[in-house]
């Protein structure tokens, strides 16, 4: 009996180790849970206007801690930002994905995986007339982050963008006001293993009077998972090209590739970089980010293009 028992235990132990190892290695294709619409254009012209970057043969994937904040942490953050009430209650049987607070015209969401979002309700009748300069907005955002102890330790880049606009159009005369900026958004980026993280560590929207309207801050904490071999940039471009030229709604490449435009006639790629980014709150993982300009007969002046390709070799 003893002789049978020990081999059984050994087999069980090996199975257990194998199962653990498999679960560590289980990194799904980057985009197998999303939906992107439209079809590609079989006649699309893709012009490579830059060189392929030099990349390592492999990189680690990081697993994001899903329970960074407990109830007490959430309460501390809420009070720090002036939200002293209770979070929005749950109904019977509901699972809590977010702690949400309201305070007058402001709303705060805190996510247990380590994220906060602050929103302000503003009347769209109050069109901004004098948004602060980019430098002033950066400074306002920096002061707000420091005052709340949210300022990132490492900043690898700052971007200023208008990401919300309003316009009025008269349908009888076709007169348009053109797009009027409602706020300026300041994004602070950081890095991991010397590679930039594509999503901002913190992002602050500044309004007309220099007030902080919206904010998002990520407090990611991640554990290093296994390292994975990477595709070459050339292979990533081939996948992107097949995706953009496929007449199917969901070609096989859609599991590894995502773009912000599809169906256009011409793409000029101006930049290819290897960056980390987040998918489905679970993994911080490497992507090739292709940036450029797309042209179509319906937007002959071009639109900004971004394509993300899963960098992990499969």
């Amino acid at each position, binding site marked *: 009996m003893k002789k049978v028992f020990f081999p059984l235990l050994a087999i069980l132990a090996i199975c257990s180790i194998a199962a653990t190892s498999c679960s560590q290695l289980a990194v799904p294709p980057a985009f197998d*849970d999303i939906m992107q619409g439209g079809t590609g254009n079989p006649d699309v012209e893709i012009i490579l206007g830059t060189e392929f970057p030099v990349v390592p043969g492999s990189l680690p994937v990081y697993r994001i801690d899903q329970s960074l904040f407990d109830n007490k942490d959430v309460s501390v953050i809420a009070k720090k930002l002036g939200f002293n009430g209770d979070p929005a209650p749950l109904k019977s049987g509901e699972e809590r994905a977010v702690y949400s607070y309201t305070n007058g015209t402001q709303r705060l969401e805190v996510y247990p995986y380590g994220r906060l979002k602050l929103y302000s309700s503003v009347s769209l*009748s109050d069109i901004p007339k004098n948004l602060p300069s980019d430098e002033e907005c950066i400074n306002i955002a920096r002061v707000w982050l420091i005052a709340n102890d949210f300022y990132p330790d490492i900043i690898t880049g700052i971007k200023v963008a208008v990401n919300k606009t309003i316009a*009025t159009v008269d*349908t009888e005369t076709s007169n348009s006001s053109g797009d009027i900026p409602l706020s300026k958004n300041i994004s602070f980026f950081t890095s991991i293993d010397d590679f930039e993280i594509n999503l901002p560590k913190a992002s602050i929207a500044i309004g007309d009077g220099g007030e902080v309207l919206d904010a998002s801050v990520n407090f990611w904490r991640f554990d290093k998972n296994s390292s994975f071999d990477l595709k070459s940039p050339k292979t990533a471009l081939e996948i992107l090209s097949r995706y953009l030229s496929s007449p199917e709604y969901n070609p096989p490449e859609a599991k590894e590739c995502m773009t912000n435009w599809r169906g256009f006639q011409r793409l000029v790629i101006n930049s290819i970089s290897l960056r980390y980014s987040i998918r489905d709150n679970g993994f911080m993982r490497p992507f090739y980010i292709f940036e450029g300009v797309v042209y179509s007969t*319906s937007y002959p002046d071009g639109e900004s293009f971004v394509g993300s390709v899963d960098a992990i070799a499969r």
Partner: protein
Amino acid sequence: MKRCIGALLLVLSTLILGSTPVLAWDEMAAVTNGYGTAFYYDAVDFSDVIDAYSGWNESLTSYTPYASWWKEESEYGYDDSYADDNELSLLVAHGNDNGGSWTITQIVFPNGGNLDDPDTVRLGYDSPDNDGVNIWSFFITCNLFKDSSYPYWLDSLTGTHMLLSFKNSVVWISGDLKELGQRLTGTGGFSQETVQGAFFSTFVDNDDEAHYYNVGRILAENDSVATYDEIDSFDTQTTVDSTKTIISCGPYY
């Protein structure tokens, strides 16, 4: 006729119960079955969340090759059905940028044909027969409101308050539609948001590579409905004029 019966029932219930009854609004969701079941069930979750909210009833949740809505009778369509017969409609379908001024979509008219002519649509109570009830229509589809396309849709704002869709190729995650419903109703831990806020908060975000590049675009009758409309707070008879408001949000970088 349906409205008369509804009004009669409201009066009768008021007399019998001695209190003001809750108003009844309808919502519909139509999903093209090319998306697979995960996205259909997400739409079902959306409908369930709205249906469970006081005053709202689910009238239709369909899963067919084409997400149907309606077309004006004057344009050889069946008027006042599908989207125009519901205060809130959610249509989920592919949209193709084929290089034309407007975008070809899988959203079709009940009598067939792709929606390649947005000029034929009039949504809301001020449509030619004064019989539509639509207040908000969400179109989860690509490129519908690209710069060259959205002006064709402005004439369809005839009483409906907002049409909510996207400028570019939208990317979304299974679960987003349910979250949209939760943000509209203030359930699942979310605080209740305006219709505008719920749409942008759900689909335009920097939380995930998938949401990062979306550009949401709302065509509104005026800035008041865009600022204040909530799922239980809106004026069904908002003034319709020739000036429309367009709000764009994203990308989030």
